């Protein structure tokens, strides 16, 4: 509970700053409206206007809050205007992509640790893959997959996997290599096979590393799904909401979709953190 006060302070500061920026950024529009209507704006009238514009440059927090309320609580979740509906679509693609990413990441990590050749030959490519801007290649991947008649959710999952496997590889390689020489020598004195060393030593030792990279990977896979939805916007999803919002200048909608995505990411990281705690505790690695 002690940690709640610093967190609240930071949140309050962010909101205060947000309001200040909303006023500053939206003021020109408020003045130009007043000019056309040929009325004088007092300062307080101007401030009031900056927080109630229909298409503000930066919507005020309460506007976004109201929009989120309207599109979650007040809409049926089957409605195409419901954020929950779109969030669910994004979450499914994220989960699929994350699962792919974890699978691919672990597979690559295991082979990198076991085969020196893999370490030398594949690792540079893995790193190079992450330097390619995903926004640029996502549409191409989507087109190619569409030509191969792949389901749209799988196509989104592939982009999501592309971003999420990387932290898993890096974390798992580090984790699988974390047992020191002494522990490995000890395995040798038991004349253990390399698969026994893997299952009994390397894999359990990598658990804390895996969880750390899963948290990074979860956020990355959400970004991947949202980016993919920009190219596959006909199927909905938070990315589609972002795109539609920017088409029509609906900044409030953009911001509420952004906040929804952030909430989703936070939720996933929180769930992973809970699983981590329980797992490590049951493994005896957290005291």
């Amino acid at each position, binding site marked *: 509970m002690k940690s709640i006060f610093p967190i609240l302070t930071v949140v309050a500061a962010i909101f205060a700053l947000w309001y200040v920026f909303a006023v500053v950024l939206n003021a020109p529009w408020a003045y130009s409206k007043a000019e056309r209507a040929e009325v004088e704006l007092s300062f307080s009238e101007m401030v009031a206007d900056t927080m109630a514009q229909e298409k503000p440059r930066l919507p005020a927090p309460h506007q976004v809050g109201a929009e989120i309320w309207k599109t979650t609580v007040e809409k049926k979740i089957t409605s195409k205007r419901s954020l929950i509906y779109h969030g669910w679509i994004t979450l499914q693609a994220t989960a699929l992509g994350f699962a792919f990413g974890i699978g691919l990441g672990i597979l690559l990590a295991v082979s990198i640790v076991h085969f020196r050749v893999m370490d030398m030959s594949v690792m540079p490519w893995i790193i190079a893959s992450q330097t390619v801007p995903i926004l640029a290649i996502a549409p191409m991947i989507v087109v190619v997959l569409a030509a191969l008649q792949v389901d749209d959710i799988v196509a989104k999952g592939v982009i999501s996997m592309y971003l999420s496997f990387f932290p898993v590889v890096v974390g798992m390689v580090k984790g699988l290599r974390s047992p020191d020489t002494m522990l490995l020598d000890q395995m*040798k004195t038991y*004349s253990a096979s390399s698969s026994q060393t893997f299952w009994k030593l390397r894999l359990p030792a990598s658990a804390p590393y895996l969880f750390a990279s899963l948290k990074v990977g979860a956020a990355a896979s959400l970004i991947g799904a949202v980016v993919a939805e920009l190219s596959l916007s006909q199927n909905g999803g938070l990315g589609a909401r972002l795109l539609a919002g920017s088409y029509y200048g609906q900044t409030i909608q953009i911001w509420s979709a952004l906040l929804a995505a952030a909430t989703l990411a936070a939720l996933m990281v929180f769930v992973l953190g809970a699983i981590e705690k329980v797992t490590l505790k049951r493994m005896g690695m957290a*005291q």
Partner: protein
Amino acid sequence: MSETVIQAKNLDLTYQTNDGPIHALKGVDLDINKGDFVSFIGPSGCGKTTFLRAIADLEQPTGGKLTVNGVSPEEARKARAYGYVFQAAGLYPWRTIGGNIRLPLEIMGYPKSEMAERVAKVLELVHLDGFEKKFPWQLSGGMQQRASIARALAFDADILLMDEPFGALDEIVRDHLNEQLLELWARTNKTIGFVTHSIPEAVYLSTKIVVMSPRPGRITDVIESTLPRERPLDIRDTPEFLEIAHRVREGLREGHAYDD
């Protein structure tokens, strides 16, 4: 005569490093008989660990001949001829004490029914009964070290190799563990190779004390203990004990003088 378990003949072991070769062992000759308790003592860097690791097939000799149970160290290792206790306890944090002791048994494919029995037996041997379900972090350093000894005893290896197992422990705990180790040795009749820096510890425990000196690592003296096998702690005050300790100290000093 009793049979020779470990035999080194003119053994060399040179490490190739970036700063040139390091002669960790040079011309080492040694016979260890079945049931011996052999201590290796000598200044830091004289090759004690290297020798133990060579016996365990964790290092490859670069010259001479080394046999364990009459075969090469590699064959002996594959036949699981020895248990090795490292300087650090090296318990797996995600396994309970019982689980840690079960580890080698699982790897060696002992039947499940037998495991529980063996775990209970070795825990009793190191006086850790009742700690089977505890995790390593719930035990003191000395208890962890005992658990790691128990783990090396759990399977049927006639040889026990120990590299400064009590190095990090205080004097009192050390005395206690030394007593227990002797008792254990008497009960199991294993051949023990034991590395230490402590003269009293070496004299108290051993039937044979190997004094080594560095650069290049070699054996300067092998002392057969005249002490009886039955050794209460206060044997350390007897003249006989002090005489052996004196000879060990002389041997160590000679090795050092060689340095200058």
